[in-house]
């Protein structure tokens, strides 16, 4: 994309304050490395985040970042992209931020196919506020507000996004760092709405409450139960029982992107002079 070569170190800033063992550390590193692969100058990137452990990432990055309000990052990001379509606009959000309070903005951004890359750091819990259940806390598991077990069913976030119109969806884990880097890169390169679910681990709340063990144990679980979507195509239903898919889950080419269509109208009536 440009002559200067950037490394992950160019994009880092500050000292992340997540718990030791939090999966978000790994995702932040994968994120920096993915951007370094593409080589976008940092001043042309705008990262918009919401509220939660995930969204604190905006404070640990050397780009233009806007740390917004709970659930609304995608709405703010829409305005950023419309106002300056040349910027690379990336949203960092969490499972509660994106699918509970922010659900409405998520599905509409998918529907519009606006060129944003939304990365959901999903740790299956509300970490920052002390461990309440979220729309992705597995059915039957515990949280501080579900002491007898969560009776809610869960979203499958990439499926939700795909059904709403997202033209690129994928899932990666904190364990599979190399794959995460490639997926994030692909999502950013995709021209249209990209949603990447990053399965994180929260040993402090979700893990402890549900006796999942320490960070290493939780990451090992990811290693043992994740199946790459390409490999899954060759496996039987019995073999896939209890597993979850990672990799590029859906991709639609040739669907016109929102800001392109918008700018076309403006050009057509001569508003770009």
């Amino acid at each position, binding site marked *: 994309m440009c002559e200067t070569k950037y490394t992950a170190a160019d994009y880092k800033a500050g000292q992340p304050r997540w718990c030791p063992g939090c999966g978000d550390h790994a995702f932040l590193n994968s994120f920096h490395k993915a951007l370094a692969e593409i080589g976008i100058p940092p*001043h042309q990137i705008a990262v918009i985040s919401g509220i939660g452990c995930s969204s604190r990432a905006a404070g640990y990055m050397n780009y233009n970042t*806007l740390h917004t*309000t709970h659930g*609304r990052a995608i709405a703010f990001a829409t305005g950023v*992209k419309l*106002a300056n379509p*040349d910027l690379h606009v990336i949203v960092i959000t969490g499972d509660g931020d994106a699918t509970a309070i922010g659900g409405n*903005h998520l599905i*509409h951004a998918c529907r519009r196919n606006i060129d944003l890359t939304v990365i959901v750091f999903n740790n299956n819990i509300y970490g920052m506020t002390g461990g309440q259940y979220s729309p992705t806390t597995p059915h039957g598991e515990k949280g501080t507000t579900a002491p007898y077990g969560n009776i809610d069913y869960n979203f499958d976030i990439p499926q939700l996004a795909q059904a709403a119109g997202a033209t690129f969806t994928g899932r990666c884990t904190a364990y599979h760092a190399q794959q995460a880097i490639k997926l994030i890169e692909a999502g950013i390169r995709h021209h249209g709405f990209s949603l990447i679910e990053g399965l994180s681990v929260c040993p402090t709340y979700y893990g402890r409450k549900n006796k999942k063990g320490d960070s290493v144990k939780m990451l090992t679980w990811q290693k043992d139960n994740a199946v790459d979507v390409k490999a899954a195509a060759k496996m039987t239903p019995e073999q896939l029982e209890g597993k979850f898919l990672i990799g590029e889950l859906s991709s639609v080419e040739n669907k016109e992107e929102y800001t392109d269509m*918008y700018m076309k109208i403006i050009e057509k009536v001569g508003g770009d002079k």
Partner: protein
Amino acid sequence: MVVRFSGDSGDGMQLAGNMFSNISATEGNDISTFPDYPADIRAPQGTLTGVSGFQVHVGSDKVYTPGDKCDVLVAMNPAALKTQYKFCKPQSVIIIDTDSFTKRDLEKAQFQLENPFSELGIKNEVVEAAITTMCKESLKDSGLDNKTIMRTKNMFALGLVCWLFHRDITIGEKLLREKFAKKPEIAEANVKVLHDGYHFGENTHASISTSYTVPTKKAMQLGRYMDINGNKAAAYGLIAAAEKSGLQLYLGSYPITPATDILHELAKHKSLGVKTVQCEDEIAGCASAVGAAFAGALAVTTTSGPGVCLKSEAMNLAVITELPLVIIDVQRGGPSTGLPTKSEQTDLLQALYGRNGESPMPVIAATSPTDCFDAAFMACKIAVEHMTPVILLSDAYIANGSAAWHLPNLNDYPAIVPPYVKPEMAGSWTPFQRNPQTGVRYWATPGMKGFMHRIGGLEKSNETGAISTEPENHNLMTRLRAEKVERIAASIPDLEVEGDADADLLIVGFGGTYGHLHSAMDAMNRHGKKAALAHFKFINPLPRNTEAVLRRYKKIVVAEQSMGQFAGYLRMKIEGLHLHQFNQVKGQPFVVKELVDAFERILASDM
């Protein structure tokens, strides 16, 4: 001269009223309009709640209000007669469509007797026109179906009223042909019926004893005029500000009565590079606007009271990140869903204080339909030059009301200069570094090389711009944000006092009640009671001479369409003020006579 068109919702009274206003303004009169219609999409035909009215005051000189009462009432059905008769004076002329006064129609309007006039005790002159029959007869060879023919009845009524007021009917023809440009047969049908109404007036001339002339004053400011309502004027003001500042205009919004027309108007102007997004909800409307401001646009969001409630969190992000944003609140009856099509001034305290924390925000209140242009322009200037969100209060009455507007020369308007970072600041600049004179931070936007930065909702260090919970820093930042808004007082005009220089009573108001309060003051002075008016447009900060002005008068009455929000605010800002209050929350404009009576009682009392 005041005309009130009224009929069933769907009888086309709004169009008839609008056209009459437009024709009058085009002929050089000043106008003030008041559309008064129900919130329902379509109430049952002929019922009392379904009546839609449009009142317009036409004058040779400046016109301040749509008038307390009308000189001519058009009542297209019995329900209209029953509900609108109260706006007539003893000598008003009432025009009715006799074909719509059948037994069934009278029943729907809950009349007991056969003669609605004697039942209501009406002694006015009534012009009876068989409008339905005449329209059918006129268009019987037109090839149009009955339903379409019935829709031209309003044009008959308009034609008749045009004859009464000696209007140039060719202006009406032109408007119709423009409106129905894609359907010439509809246009011509309406033009024909318009003429029929006019001729009917001529032919029955002998039976109307009064004739009305509203001449154009010769000494009028030269230039181009158009009639404009507050919402359209606000939209134009935003575009003017975008041009003056060199910024791109971005509107993030959501449909809500009575503000939606601003979104409609701006959505049409893509040829001027205006970007508008109808977002998925009110919050996204405001949030996307703040995002656009972060990226360097002139960002605006428009709404009414309920939307301000929803947007408060996103507005607060603009407060703490110190980004420019204009929020236009076209106030309506509340609380909650309230009265969507009726006007009041009850969002003042919400605008000033309806957010968590110490959240200082400039508040401006437009005073008339045409002032919405200037107020919107000023709101943008303040927002951009002081890096702050600004709330512009409008209301349903001025938003939908029209007046004749002299098209301004933008060269007469002040420059708008965004406080951008300068290239030499690169390297040492931090996001909350401030201009020492104004206390305003410098604006860097994503894409500017060397000026990457991180901002957000958490409190930040004044020195470094990093997240900080340090106690002295929070204290300092809170005060700096407040001071920044207070300093805006140096850029706003002083408070003006109109009327008697040594008045015994000072009338105080704000926003869209200007016309009515001015008329009340005038009426009092004509009665020999000395009154003056101080009408506020800038609420936060208040003009610097506010205290000095208010302390000069022995008696002050704050007249507002609320339960006393502005009076309470003034008492909070200025110690020891004794204020009388005139409060009305009816969803209807003030009645000048009622104001005068109340003010004269205050003058006469000991308190």
